């Protein structure tokens, strides 16, 4: 379980956020996001979990100002999402990297760096460090159009970091990446958080979210179905796990006897298995040590120097204060009365409790959340959710 560093500032705040897609005749075609509330605090990794079509990407697009909310209130750094000033502090990796095919990685990073008005030498330095970090230095002068999906994702991630953002929004960041890249992204996210950066991570890959997120919401059908910290959501207060070196059957029987005396029976006894990801990483590390050749993207290097440099600890909060001083606050939707919001939250909490109750009944507890990536408590829920699906057509989540 990763540690959590929570700041007090609120970078993103959504209240009653709703997005309805309409057709040419203004008829409602899909309710992609339906009256959701959430808050992203500075210095945290906020997970947005949900199956395809649950409204994750639509929410992100609203945060970025790419879509206008149909209802509710949305503030980013205390300002409307369309405000250009707030984007100076945001890094965004979309679900697919929509980059210019004719630009090389160096040119791509240089281009986006220019949009942030980063001076040329600094741009150059950051671009080189980022390319080193994502393992694309060797192909820095090849057009992006020639890249594989994984390589494109890597350059996409690099461009999202070129401005050393305060708020990093990642939509399916590990999609298309090999386990090595996936591991590296997770480590990067943790490292960025330790520097006080805030990350919004949207994914349908449960392990991604579980491994790194502090807070999370689970979306389905455009509504929040569950919310809380990873600990809150995954804690299993009905079971106890004791981890010990391998025990003989005799010892287990003795323990069972002790437990029976206490009126408790053993539900199951298993030898823990190594995670496939760990096994894979182990093999790759050995191969790398043996200097086996590979083509395309090399495994990434260390985190870029400029991303590792510590800024002021209260940087995000100072920024928030500054932005809020400079611009009027986002106006609350007049139709949204505070009472309605409270009521909605109460209903949502009830739903969440019910869902959590179901989840804990269906699945065995995981002693450590990081070890339950393939068959953890989320799996049952997702399978259930996928049975329903929805017919949202305008937004691909």
């Amino acid at each position: 379980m990763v540690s959590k560093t929570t700041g007090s500032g609120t970078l993103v705040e959504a209240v009653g956020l709703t997005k309805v897609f309409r057709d040419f005749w203004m008829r409602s075609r899909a309710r992609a996001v339906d009256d959701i509330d959430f808050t992203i605090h500075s210095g945290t990794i906020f997970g947005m979990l949900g199956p395809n079509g649950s409204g994750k990407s639509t929410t992100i697009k609203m945060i970025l100002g790419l879509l206008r909310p149909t209802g509710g209130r949305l503030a980013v750094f205390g300002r409307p999402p369309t405000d250009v000033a707030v984007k100076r502090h945001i890094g965004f990796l979309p679900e697919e990297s929509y980059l210019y095919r004719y630009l090389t990685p160096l040119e791509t990073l240089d281009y986006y760096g220019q949009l942030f008005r980063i001076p040329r030498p600094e741009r150059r330095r950051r671009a080189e460090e980022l390319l080193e970090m994502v393992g694309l230095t060797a192909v820095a002068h090849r057009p992006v159009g020639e890249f594989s999906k994984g390589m494109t994702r890597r350059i996409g991630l690099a461009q999202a970091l070129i401005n050393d953002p305060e708020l990093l929004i990642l939509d399916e960041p590990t999609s298309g990446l090999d386990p090595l890249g996936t591991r590296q992204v997770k480590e990067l996210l943790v490292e960025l958080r330790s520097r006080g950066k805030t990350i919004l991570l949207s994914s349908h890959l449960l392990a991604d979210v579980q491994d790194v997120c502090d807070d999370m919401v689970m979306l389905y059908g455009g509504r929040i179905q569950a919310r809380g910290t990873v600990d809150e959501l995954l804690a299993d207060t009905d079971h106890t796990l004791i981890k010990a070196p391998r025990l003989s059957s005799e010892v287990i029987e003795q323990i069972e006897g002790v437990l029976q005396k206490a009126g408790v029976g053993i539900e199951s006894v298993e030898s823990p298995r190594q995670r496939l990801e760990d096994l894979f990483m182990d093999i790759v590390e050995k191969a790398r040590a043996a200097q086996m050749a590979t083509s395309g993207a090399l495994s990434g290097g260390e985190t870029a120097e400029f991303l590792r440099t510590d800024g002021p600890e209260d940087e995000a909060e100072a920024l928030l204060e500054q932005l809020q001083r400079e611009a009027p606050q986002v106006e609350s939707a007049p139709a949204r009365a505070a009472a309605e919001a409270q009521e909605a939250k109460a209903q949502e909490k009830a739903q969440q409790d019910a869902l959590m109750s179901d989840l804990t009944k269906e699945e065995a507890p995981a002693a450590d959340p990081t070890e339950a990536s393939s068959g953890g408590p989320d799996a049952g829920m997702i399978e259930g959710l996928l049975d329903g699906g929805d017919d949202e057509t305008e937004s691909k989540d």
Partner: protein
Amino acid sequence: MSLIDALRRALERAQRRIWVRVIASIVVIAAGLLIFGRAAWQGQAFIDRFLEVRDALVSDEAHVWAVDLLENGRAEIGGAFIELDPSIGENLITPEGEIRSVDELVAVMMAPLQPANVPSWLWKEPSVAWGMAAAAITTGLVAVWTGLIPLLVLLGVPAGLASWGLWLLGASEGALALSTAAVLLVLFHALTRMLMLGMELIGPAGAVAATVLRESGRSRVALAFVITLLILLPLLPLSLDTGAPLRHQVQSLLDRSLSLTFAMVAVMTMALGCSTIAFDIRDRHIWHLVSKPLGTHSYLAGKWLGVISLNAVVLIIGSTFAAAWTGYLRWSPPPDAMNSAADIAIVSDEILTAHAERTPDYPELDENEIRNRVEAILREDPEYAQYTDSVPPPRLVRVLREEVRDEYGMDQRRAESILNQSVDPWKSVTFSGLGDVREQLLSASGESLNLRLRFRLYGGSSDEHQRRLVGIAINGQLENGRAGAFIPTVRQQIMISPRAIREDGTLEVTFVNLTHWPVPAGINWQPADLRAITEAPPQRAPFAIVWEAQDIELLYPAGGFLGTYTRAMVVQWVKLAALSAVACFMATFLSFPVACLASLTILAGAALGPFLSQALGFFTPPPLQAVEGVGQTISWALDSFIRTIASTLVYLLGSFGEFTPIERVIQGRVIDWAMVGRSVLQLGLFWCGPLLLTGWWILRNRQLALYSGDS
């Protein structure tokens, strides 16, 4: 990996080393100086020597050298000997040492001293050669220091070898075309790189613009146009009729190269302007962009700036090519060109000199006279008998007033046939305000006025393929008039001495409709013959000659070619900027194919504006009162609808077609800064401003993550 690809990668790696760039820079400078600098230096030395010899031979001591030349075959002038073949000398110098023609003598003696192995078009104007040296070295250095060494090597070496091979095989024109294409391609890339560096100073909008320029060099849409143009341009000279007068060749070359450049760039502008924005939206690149601190105004401005920068690059290339080749043609007339010396002079006087123009002051009817004539028509024409005792409708009065005005105007521009005994067979027009022009031309000896005219035939047997005899007299002196054969509808010209301008700055020109053709026997083209011709018996059926207001004009020198040429290109650029704004605007809310189609329709409408405007004059639906029945009503409604659309188009787009800088350059007309200013105001401000503002508003209010594509 192919060999070329491997070589390219190796060169790319190599050019990152500073010492490689330094060596390449030295090579570029040396090559520039060797090719152009040497020509300039040798040319200047020759011209200095030429002037030195000429000055000596017009001085008081000329006879001393003349005798030396005649007796010894050589003379020492300015510390160096100059030789003359005695057999030729006898024709140019009298035995007494008197030089018959200094210019001819100097030309004969200096001919062997002309720079060898250097094209004459290059050394004859050393300043141009130095300019080319500077341009070549600058381009080369930009190419070296902006990462174009692979292009220089991979393009320059094969093109150079192939050109050399063609030269050895005798296909010098092909060699020139090939090497020119290679130079233009390098120039394109170098200019693009230079602009991209400059864009960095502008901020985010500049970054967007620089990426558009990059896109133009790598994406198929723009590259197809650019490469096609850069290949076609060098081939154009091969299409010239080398047997035609040099003036026609120069005009054809200017017309074809500048028109081709503009047409290609215009269509490319449409395609690139539409694609660069529409594809950003379709392929969702804009998701990245809008999530950065880039306002929609900066985005749109950047795209527009990128497209017009590319326009500037291609225009510079096209116009440089046309100007350079004009210089080449001017100094290297083909051997079979007719009267080459005279032709060169005509090219210099008529095309390579910018002329201002004046049209005659045609009298107009005053208000009283118009009213009287309208009343007379209403009173006398049986068609309007119904209005004898009632007030005619205002619309009818308006129409009649127009008719009266038009008829009077046409009457001022018509000369009846000499056979039409009822009226004088001539018409006079007066130019005024020429006092300054007179002074200016008289002080610049040798300059003259150029009367350009074009007649049409009206009535009678008017075969326009035959020549017609028209007499022209200045300031009403028919007895000193001159008869000439004119081909109807073809523009022709007559040179007039500036002394003909009266003291009050007016000049009166009389056109006499002599009708006869062929010319009666025994009559020559002498001034005194005009009266005689009018008395000769008629041989053809009567006809009137008529002309439009712009058909008669007086031109006089008012500046150099280069200035006008540069301003013409600025006007062209402004026109292209307007087209870019149209394309960018369309792409903010339409998909690529639809935006392209809409933009091209506007381009066509704009280009045809003057024609549409003229055609609309002949396309007037009948008055509604005259319409009867359903069929006629539908037809009337349709006609009215079409006319409304066409009128709107002409109103909105008319200004685009009114600016015709290429035509003016070819005709040797001046383009002043006022015209440039007008084009900037009308097209740059009134076109681009509203279009870009509307486009910005659309983009700002559009939900850019809504999409219906399947990419």
